[in-house]
């Protein structure tokens, strides 16, 4: 028994580099040998899916990409799944970016989904309006007069020459907004300066850390549901039936969480033993 308590006591104050090593292994191993745990959608992810599914076919949807390479693992799978869902329901997709490096990632996503998978034509089914600097000023500009801000699209062609831009002059001409956001500027700026003043419905996908900031807006009804982090992306991939990076990462995520909880429990047991011993002496 003494050996066991000493072992746990050692666990109570282990050098944090052992924790780092265990975390690294726990994440790498499932990537090579996947377990394939099934994924069930939570209520907030289901709410986003139902909202998008309820949109009448062929409506105009604005997808805005506010994330960079460092948050790509969480957000990019969401953008791919939402785009697959939108193109499956024959919607017109317009893509803007509030982050400069979001434009590279947005064009990768469009090329993969719209061009390769669905074989759609640029300018008629989807358009990449691209990045404009100015943070919330861009959101306000899209609300007041989109054509003043976007005279040309990301490829440099004039907006007037793009067929699908017909009748699109302001934010209110869109039927729905999906904001893929990793921070500032992002979802909160879209709620404050675009959705609140105009009542165009909006859903969002954010990094899991930003969920807590955005949750009060969801529960106040300003945003229709939220995809929270990589699990949100994996759940959406399960809903549209096309597994992707989100799904493959979920096994590693589940096990890593279990290991962290195990460390917390062992750390607490070690803490209690140490406290009782110090009380004794």
């Amino acid at each position, binding site marked *: 028994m003494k050996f066991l308590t000493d072992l746990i006591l050692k666990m109570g104050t282990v050098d944090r580099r052992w924790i780092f090593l265990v975390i690294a292994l726990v994440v790498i191993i499932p990537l090579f040998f996947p377990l394939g745990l099934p994924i069930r959608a939570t209520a907030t992810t289901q709410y986003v899916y139902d909202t998008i599914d309820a949109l009448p076919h062929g409506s105009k949807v604005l997808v805005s990409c506010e994330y960079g390479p*460092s948050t790509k693992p969480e957000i990019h799978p969401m953008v791919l799944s939402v785009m697959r869902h939108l193109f499956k329901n024959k919607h017109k997709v317009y893509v803007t970016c509030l982050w400069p490096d979001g434009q590279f990632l947005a064009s990768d996503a469009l090329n993969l989904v719209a061009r390769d998978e669905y074989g759609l034509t640029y300018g008629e089914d989807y358009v990449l309006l691209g990045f404009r600097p100015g943070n919330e000023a861009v959101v306000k500009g899209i609300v007041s007069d989109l054509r003043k801000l976007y005279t040309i699209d990301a490829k440099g062609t004039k907006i007037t020459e793009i067929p699908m831009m017909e009748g699109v002059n302001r934010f209110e001409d869109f039927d729905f907004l999906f904001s893929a956001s990793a*921070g500032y500027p992002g979802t909160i700026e879209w709620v404050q300066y675009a959705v*609140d003043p105009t009542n165009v419905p909006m859903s969002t996908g954010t990094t899991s*850390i*930003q969920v*807590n*900031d955005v949750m009060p807006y969801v529960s106040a009804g300003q945003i229709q549901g939220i995809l929270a982090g990589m699990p949100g992306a994996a759940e959406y991939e399960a809903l549209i039936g096309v597994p992707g990076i989100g799904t493959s990462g979920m096994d590693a995520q589940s096990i890593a969480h279990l290991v962290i909880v195990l460390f917390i429990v062992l750390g607490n047991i070690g803490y209690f033993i140490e406290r009782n011993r110090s009380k004794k002496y």
Partner: protein
Amino acid sequence: MNDRDFIIGAGGVTFSFLIYWFMGHPFFIIERIVMFIAIMTFTGTLLFFIRKARRGEEIFLREIPGLKAVEEAVGRSTEMGKPVLFVPGIMDMDQVETVAGVIVLGHVSKMTARYETTLNVPVSRAIVMKAAQDVCKESYLMEGRPDMFHEDMVHYLTDEQFAYAAGVNGIMVREKPAACMYMGKFYAESLILAETGNSIGAIQIAGTASQAQIPFFVTACDYTLIGEEFFAASAYLSQRPELIGGIKGQDMIKIIIIGMIIGGVVLRFLHDGGMIDFNILEFLTVR
């Protein structure tokens, strides 16, 4: 400005606004009337208590452990002969938290001048660099130690969030400061800084209104000023009457807000029950 002038001025402004209002208030965006009333009421409350404090009235403020620890941390650094590291957040002066962080830096640099401790302030924005250099120079002047101030105390690293975190990590691990202070607006890099600071055994005090980062500072730092406590820091550290009066004013605004919530629940109860037709939710909708 004594009381009489203030009342005449405030009365004049209100009176002229009422005339403008009853003349049909041209150019006024009527949907935002709630915000206008809120701004006027809250500003009036603040000014009332600031003026009360200026008249010398005693105002009690409860103790905030984090702010008491600031002076102890600088003292500890002096004893150990190690520098104090101050991080004013990663955003620019267009965020109110960054301005509040620079003001706290002013008070901390007064302490480092008094205790003759080395101060290291790596910044992530050039305008913050200029403002921080100005504030530190002023503090060292006011403490009578202009000789100890040198401009490189405040130095620019980079605008990029994670390169800045990497650079500050390097400073922490190599110079091993005894006290680390994080005052301003932070994003995901907050835990990188706090965990590295914890690993070198420094005393850590954080103050931020970045809601998503507060849990990390609470778990990884010794003291954390949560949201509003961070904005009260300049009043506590300077002990200037008008700032302390402002804090008392903020408390009164909290009472108004709690009153609005409870009153709103009652009004909604009456509205749903059909007793009254005034709809509080409609009134509070700002377009």
